[in-house]
C-alpha cells in the first residue's frame, strides 16, 4: 500500500500538472470585458480580393496577431478572420482541411467575407487545418468510413 502510494504520488503529480494546465485553459483568470467606443462602420471593402493587413478601427475585441499560434499564415489568417469575430471562436474549433475549406466558403457565402485568390485561400486554410485539427476522436479509433 505504501509503495503504491509512493509510485502513484509521482504519476499523480504529473497528472495534476497536466490537469492544472488544461483546467487553466478552460477558465483562465477573469478578465474585464472592455468594449471599445463605437467607431463609424467601415466602408464596403468587402469584395476586395487583397487580404487585409490590419484590423478595422471598430473591431471590438482585444485580440492581436499573437492571439493565434505561430506559423506560416498566422498574420493573414488573423487579419482576415478577426476583422469580424474574436479568435476564441477559431481556437474552439477542430476540423479537417476539407471542413476548414468549407467553413472558409461559408464565411464568403453567408457573411460576405472577402474572396481572396487561391494562393491566399490555401495559405489560410492550410494554417487553420494545421493548427486546429480534429482533437476529439471518440473511442480510440478513427471512423472507418472517413476518407480524410
Amino acid at each position: 500500500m505504501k509503495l503504491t502510494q509512493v509510485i502513484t504520488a509521482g504519476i499523480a503529480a504529473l497528472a495534476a500538472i497536466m490537469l492544472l494546465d488544461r483546467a487553466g485553459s478552460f477558465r483562465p483568470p477573469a478578465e474585464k470585458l472592455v468594449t471599445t467606443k463605437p467607431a463609424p462602420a467601415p466602408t464596403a471593402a468587402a469584395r476586395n480580393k487583397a487580404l487585409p493587413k490590419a484590423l478595422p478601427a471598430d473591431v471590438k475585441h482585444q485580440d492581436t496577431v499573437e492571439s493565434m499560434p505561430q506559423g506560416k499564415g498566422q498574420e493573414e489568417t488573423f487579419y482576415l478572420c478577426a476583422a469580424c469575430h474574436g479568435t476564441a471562436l477559431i481556437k474552439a474549433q477542430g476540423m479537417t482541411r476539407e471542413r476548414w475549406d468549407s467553413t472558409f466558403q461559408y464565411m464568403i457565402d453567408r457573411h460576405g467575407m472577402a474572396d481572396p485568390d487561391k494562393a491566399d485561400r490555401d495559405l489560410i486554410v492550410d494554417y487553420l487545418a494545421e493548427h486546429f485539427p480534429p482533437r476529439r476522436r471518440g473511442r480510440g479509433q478513427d471512423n472507418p468510413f472517413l476518407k480524410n
Partner: protein
Amino acid sequence: MAKRERGMHELYADDPERADALVFGRRTGRSRRGFLKGAGLASMGAAIGAAIPFSENMPAGLVPAALAQATTAPPAAPAGGDKGPKLLKMDGKADLVLLGDKPLVAETPAEMMDDEVTPTEKFFIRNNGLLPDASKMPSDPRMWKIKIDGEVDKPMEISLGDLMARYEASSLKLQLECGGNGRSFFTPEARGNQWTNGGAGCAEWTGVRLGDVLKAAGLKSTAVYTGHFGADVHLSGDASKVTISRGMRMAKAMDPHTLIAFRMNGKEIPLVHGGPVRLIVPGWAGSLSAKWLTRVWVRDKEHDGQGMGGFSYRTPKMPMIPGDKGDEKNMAILESMPVRSIVTFPAHGAKLPKGTTKIDLRGSAWAGDNTIQSVDISIDYGVTWTKAEVKAPANKFAFQRYTASVPVPSAGYYEIWSKATDSSGKTQPFQAGNWNPQGYGGNPISRVAVLIEA
C-alpha cells in the same frame, strides 16, 4: 513554430485508451470497462484525489467528469496563458463562462441554473452580431417600432407602447435554448460555439402573443412562414448585411406561448438580452427568438433569411458519417429542441463531507415542445438507475425541477449522471448522436463529478 503542448484532454481526444495508459497507467480488459488487474486505478484515483468506488463499471477512455469540465473555482492559469474561455465580467451579470467576446457569447454553468426560474443575471448570452448602439435607440422604449408585413391584409408599424396598450399581456416561464446547446459533446468537433449544457435558461417573460398581433394584421391564406429581423449589427459593422434572420412555420407563430416580450423576470429586458423588445419562441432554437425585434415578415414560403439555409440550424435526414463534409440537400430544419437534463446541485467539482451516505441532488430538465416524463439518476456509470421525483412544469415550456436521493456506499469519487425521458418517450443518449457539421441536437446524458472525502 512553437511545439504544441499536449494536455490531458488532448491525449484523451487523440486516443482515449492510450491516454488512459499514458496518464494513469490504466489498462482495460476486453470488456473495455474497469481496470485490468487494478492497473492505473490508484493513479487515476490519485489524480482525482479519491478512490473510484464503481471503477469496475467505468468505460475505457472515459475522461473522468472531474477532468472533463471546468469547475467554478478554477486553479490559476499559467501566466500569460490566453487559451480557452474566460469568465464574463459585466455589470448585472454573474460570472458566466465566456465562449467568445465577439460576438459576445457566454454560458451558464449547471450549478447556476439551480432555480425554477433562471435569474436574469445568470441567464446565458448568445449574440450573432454586435449589440445595437443604445445611444441610437429611442430614449423612451415605448417608441420602439416593430413592422408586421408580408402576407397580411393590414401591414403595420406599431410602437412598443401601442403594442402594450392594445394587446393582452401574459407572463409565462419559458425556456430559451441556443440551437447549438450541447455542441461540445460531438465527436469529432462540430463547427461553432462549444456549448456544454449552459446555453439554456428559463426566465419569466411578459409579452403579448405574436399570434394575436398577426391575427390583427389579418393573415392571408398564403401566409405559411415567418421571417424575423432584429436591430443587431453584423459583426463586420457593415449595415447592409443582415446578422441573422430566422423564421418558423405559422403553427408555431400562432402558439399562445410564442410572445413578443418586453419584460424579463418582471423588469425591462436588459439590452444584452434583447431589450427593449424581443421574440420568445420557447422550445425551438433560440435564434428564432429575435432580439431587438424590428420586423416580422410573414412569408408565402419557407423563410430564406440569414441562418435558414445550408447546415445552419439543420440536422441530417439520413444519418451522415461523423466528421464528413456533408450534403446540404440532406439537411432538415431543426424545430423542437431535444430532451435534456442537468444536475444543478451538487455542483460539478463539489466536495462532500466525510461520512456522507447519500447524495440529495436536484436538477432541471426540459424537452423542447414536449414535457418531461421521467429523470433517471446513476452514480455507477449507468449500471443502476434511480428514478428522480419530477415536478410538473409551472406552465408549458417551463423548466421542470427534479430531486433525487441516492445512497453512496463509501467515500470517493462519483459521477452523477442524469438522463431525462420526454413525453414522446425519447431519452437522452449515452453519446451525442446524429452528428452534423454545425453540431445541433447534442443531448447526451449529463455528468457531474463529486468527491466524498475519506
